[in-house]
């Protein structure tokens, strides 16, 4: 800006200076030349008169340093010259001014020196006797004048240069000042040159557009953050150099990292060999999966490559908590193994007995014992299969209608059904409590209480008691079954609700249980949205409390 202004000022100044010099010099030079010519002519006329009157003597008396007078005879020989010796001078007949004078009585010419620095003005006049008198004067040319003026001109130029520099910077500062102070946040509220209005308008329009885009971007970013924040799966976004671009809280807690890990290498939060291999292979092949264990939990990591326009721009790591799924898987495997084992044992027993009978190895008197054995084993098998069916029905969670059920009535029914069995084992079973109506499924309730009481009787000591109580505690309906049996030691307490789990494996056959009873109870109570509490001391008895 300053430069441009400076240049324009400089050019204008130069142009004006040049023009002034040319015009002034031209005018003055012409004027002075004219004056000089006229003077010369007058001088010549005077000199001619003098010469005609007194001849050479006049010339000899004439003392002029400025003017040179030459007297030339009509044949061109120089008769006299005021500046040099006439004898040494050549014939002047060929000079233009002499020739002109001889023909027209007057002649004139101008001759320049070889350097163009000097010019000589000649005037000639024919005298009456035919000779010619010539006057000449030397004068400087216009170039010498200009050259002489060079110094002041240079000074003027330097002054112009400095002045225009100062002026240019002042002007540009003056112009720029309001521009510098422009408030681009509110372009339209600026009070400045009206020439800037279109620009400010455009800036205003762009600003609005940028604001719009920014808020849109912010909204999208917020959305993304909201979604990833509430995700239970861990999510990490990496760029192609493995730098973390984004990480959600779930992933932070999984990798035990802090928020500040953003922008750092993924290795800084997870350096295990397998994981970094998985990320590398995902960047190469597009996808990889890996299972890792962290603090007793099992995670499955899915790593996917992100591409944009065919170029790899990073990878996304998604971590699922597979702890429960893995646990369920293990349980299912165990269950299948257990079921096949439990089903096989009675069948093998039946097969053995049947084979003995088939081969006639059984004496007639032993026959009822063997047949009885087959029957009891088949019965066991049947109960087992019934239990499994019941369990799988609970697993499938078939729609069972909830209805108003009196918990006491159900418990009482169960107790009266079990009275005989209990009496056979010399165990006293009793029920206390009040009617409590709840919304429930009667069949499941019956099964739950039956299994609990059945267990209480099975794992009891001789002459023991089973006390069932039904009452309301706060807003809960509670049924508790208390026995004076063998009790369950703490290490078994957590496991007794698992399928086929038995505290004492050797007693299972004797008691006739299938190992599924408490498992059924657990599932039924879960289905009825209840809660089981277990209190037990080895040798003193067990209390199981179910609240709905």
């Amino acid at each position, binding site marked *: 800006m300053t430069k441009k202004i400076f240049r324009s000022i400089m050019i204008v100044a130069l142009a004006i200076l040049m023009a002034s010099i040319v015009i002034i010099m031209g005018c003055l030079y012409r004027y002075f030349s004219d004056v000089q010519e006229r003077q010369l002519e007058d001088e010549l006329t005077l000199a001619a008169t003098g010469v005609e009157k007194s001849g050479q003597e006049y010339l000899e008396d004439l003392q002029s340093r400025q003017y040179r007078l030459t007297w030339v005879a009509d044949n061109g020989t120089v008769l006299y010259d005021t500046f040099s010796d006439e004898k040494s001078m050549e014939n002047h007949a060929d000079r233009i001014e002499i020739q002109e004078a001889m023909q027209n009585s007057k002649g004139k010419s101008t001759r320049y020196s070889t350097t163009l620095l000097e010019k000589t003005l000649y005037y000639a006049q024919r005298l009456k006797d035919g000779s010619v008198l010539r006057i000449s004067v030397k004068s400087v040319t216009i170039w010498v004048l200009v050259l002489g003026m060079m110094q002041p001109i240079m000074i003027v130029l330097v002054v112009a240069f400095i002045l225009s520099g100062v002026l240019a910077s002042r002007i540009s500062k003056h112009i720029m000042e309001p521009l510098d102070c422009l408030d681009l946040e509110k372009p339209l509220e600026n009070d400045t040159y009206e020439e800037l209005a279109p620009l400010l308008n455009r800036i205003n329009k762009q600003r609005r557009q940028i604001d719009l885009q920014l808020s849109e971007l912010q909204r999208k970013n917020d959305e993304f953050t909201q979604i990833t924040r509430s995700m239970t799966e861990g999510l990490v976004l990496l760029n192609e150099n*493995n730098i973390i671009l984004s990480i959600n809280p779930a992933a932070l807690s999984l990798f035990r990292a802090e928020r500040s890990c953003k922008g750092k*290498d993924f*290795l*800084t939060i997870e*350096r*295990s*060999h397998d994981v*970094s291999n998985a990320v590398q292979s995902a960047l190469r092949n597009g996808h990889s999966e890996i299972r890792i264990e962290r603090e007793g939990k099992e995670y499955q990591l899915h790593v996917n490559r992100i591409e944009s326009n065919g170029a790899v721009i990073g990878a996304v790591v998604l971590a699922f908590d597979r702890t429960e799924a893995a646990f369920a898987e293990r349980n299912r495997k165990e269950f299948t193994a257990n079921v096949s084992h439990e089903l096989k044992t009675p069948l093998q027993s039946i097969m053995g007995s049947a084979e003995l009978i088939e081969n006639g190895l059984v004496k007639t008197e032993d026959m009822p014992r063997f047949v009885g054995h087959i029957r009891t084993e088949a019965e066991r098998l049947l109960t087992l299969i019934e239990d499994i069916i019941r369990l799988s029905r609970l697993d499938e969670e078939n729609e069972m209608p909830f209805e108003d059920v009196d918990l006491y009535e159900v418990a009482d029914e169960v107790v009266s059904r079990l009275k005989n069995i209990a009496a056979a084992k010399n165990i006293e079973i009793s029920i206390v409590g009040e009617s409590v109506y709840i919304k429930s499924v009667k069949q499941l309730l019956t099964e739950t209480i039956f299994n609990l009481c059945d267990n209480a009787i099975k794992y009891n000591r001789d002459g023991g008691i089973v006390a069932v109580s039904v009452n309301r505690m706060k807003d809960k309906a509670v049924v508790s079954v208390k026995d004076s049996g063998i009790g369950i030691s703490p290490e078994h307490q957590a496991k007794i609700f698992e399928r086929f789990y038995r505290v004492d494996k050797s007693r299972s056959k004797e008691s006739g249980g299938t190992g599924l009873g408490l498992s059924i109870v657990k599932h039924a109570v879960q289905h009825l949205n209840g809660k089981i509490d277990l209190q037990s001391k080895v040798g003193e008895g067990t209390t199981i409390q179910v609240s709905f």
Partner: protein
Amino acid sequence: MRSRFDEQLAMLNNELTQMGAMCEEAIAIASKALSMGDVKLTDKVLSLDGEINQMERTIETLCLKLLLQQQPVARDLRQISAALKMITDMERIGTQAADIAEIITFLDGRTGEECEYIRFMAEATMQMVTESIDAFVKQDIVLAKTVVDHDDIVDHLFMQVKTALIKMIAENPTDGGYALDLLMIAKYFERIGDHAVNIAEWVVFSVTGTHKGKLG
């Protein structure tokens, strides 16, 4: 020019982290092999040790290249020289894990359960190595200093192992060889703890510029 140097430094950091992770894995597998008496796992430790040695060469070359080509000063120089020292300690950790694995193959599947302090030692040293690598990754001086403190625990555990093994030999002289093997394993764990301390000290050096000499 500088950005290229920064890139190379970042690469050095990554390689060091990976090497550290390999060391962690090596002792984790070695101690698992010991506690489960699983001889098959020891092969894995040996192959990891090979990889760790390879990694040491790679990082060494990278460090020397950086020193020659970039002629770093101040913090960068500290970082690179600390890296050169750290890889030596890491390499020793890898080798000692391999040594433990080798001894495990002589134990005939015995797990050293007679002396539970060995298990504690394994856990404590694993924690130390993990913490020293963590300290490096996070450039965390406080964590590095806790590693130095933890060394006392490991040293103390080693004394307990020694006492327990002396008692074991006295009670059952036929198990003398076994007891000595266990002692060697314990000694290796103790050495690994020392190397973890060294690593932690170099971390402190690369951050603060002061190195307080090796602790015995």
